């Protein structure tokens, strides 16, 4: 792929397309491996009647219901697959995610204390961004959005850039270790 990027020619483009096709094919099989592993794990828990095995039954039933309805009736509007998606999966996931806001509110109240300088800086920045990034902040004072944007544009962005550069260097180092054969743990060797 590196070769094709720097020296674009018909053979290199063909090789590149073949690699991309193969990656897609392998990815589909990894999905199958994942589904098989998940079903095996859950079936084992059910067969041994381990504690909470009722949840595993629900998981297996859910996977089979979605797969079978999709395979038998298709995925177009008005089919059982879409009905389950709209009336079971979507509301359930949205509900679970929405519940987080209640726990965030409670834990912010309990845990967000100005115990030292670092915690105070974090606390003040968080409160200013929370107020500055919603219309009520602008309604109270036009300075709130400006301060919130400054926090996002300068200190937050500086930290982000540092993290990105760290990740990039780490990825290059790990890739080189794998390419040069120094890192072999992915082959099951220490």
């Amino acid at each position: 792929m590196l070769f094709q990027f720097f020296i674009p020619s018909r053979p290199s483009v063909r090789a590149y397309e073949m690699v991309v096709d193969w990656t897609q094919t392998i990815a589909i099989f990894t999905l199958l491996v994942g589904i098989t592993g998940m079903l095996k794990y859950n079936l084992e828990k059910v067969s041994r009647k381990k504690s909470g095995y009722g949840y595993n039954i629900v998981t297996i039933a859910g996977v089979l219901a979605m797969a079978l309805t999709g395979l038998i009736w298709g995925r177009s509007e008005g089919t059982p697959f879409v009905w389950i998606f709209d009336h079971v999966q979507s509301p359930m996931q949205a509900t679970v995610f929405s519940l987080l806001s209640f726990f965030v509110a409670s834990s912010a109240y309990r845990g967000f204390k100005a115990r030292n300088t670092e915690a105070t800086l974090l606390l003040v920045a968080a409160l200013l961004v929370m107020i500055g990034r919603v219309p009520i902040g602008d309604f109270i004072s036009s300075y709130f959005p400006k301060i919130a944007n400054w926090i996002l544009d300068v200190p937050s962005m500086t930290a982000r850039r540092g993290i990105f550069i760290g990740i990039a260097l780490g990825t290059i180092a790990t890739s080189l270790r794998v390419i040069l054969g120094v890192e072999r743990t992915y082959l099951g060797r220490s």
Partner: protein
Amino acid sequence: MNFWQRASSIDRRIIFILLFIAVVIPLIFNFKLPNRVTKEVQAVYDYIESLPPGSVILMSFDHDTATLPEMTPMARALLRHIFTKGEKVIGTAFLAEGAAIGNKAFKFVSDEFGLKEGEDYVFLGYRPEISSAILGMGENIARVYPKDYRGVPLADIPLMQQVKNYRDIGLIISVSDNDSPNAWINLANARYHKPVAPAVTAVMATTYYPFLQEKQIIGMVPGLKAAAEYEQLINKPGTATVGMAAQSIAHLLIVLLVIVGNIGYFMLKRRNA
């Protein structure tokens, strides 16, 4: 128990009830607060405005159902703007749930405009392994997606007869609740020089500000607030505009709770010292 002890140990059930009221009341009474349009949202709007009618925009639905309340308003507002301008859209998904979500969003908005699938928009559906799919589409979309979501071969779809790869696409919008816009930026933008605009959840926004500053993305639509701003820009207030009042009051409540908790903490600390 004195006042400050009570202030620093409010029962969490009371907090839950207060938050519930803070969210529900603005929704019931349909409160609306003035919302100033931010530069990153305005940039996306302006870019779509600058595209000639008939241009093709690729919109990828890379989020799951958990974030639907935040993502749906922005996806609909963007689609409404694109269709109002007479532009065409190709939809993709690199998260399995994104396929059903994207298909639904296209149906909902295209019905409002009386548009025809295959001519005005195409939804291609889900593909695993985002990196190789993005790279593959850069050479030939039909190699990655031989058929659309309905199972119609791409060769039989009128819109796809004028689109082979990214050269025929004017803008890529990634509607996402994860780091999938990174893949679009690193591969479609860096390699194929295609303009990218992430439409992401508010918590993901900070990840993309460095890309915005370096002009690797043309703009951004981050969170429900940005969705409300976009609704304002296209002059069609929707669920995001109403939701912003609820979010504003909820944020204000949390800020007040944190302040009360801290005052209580310091008063008790001083008393115990």
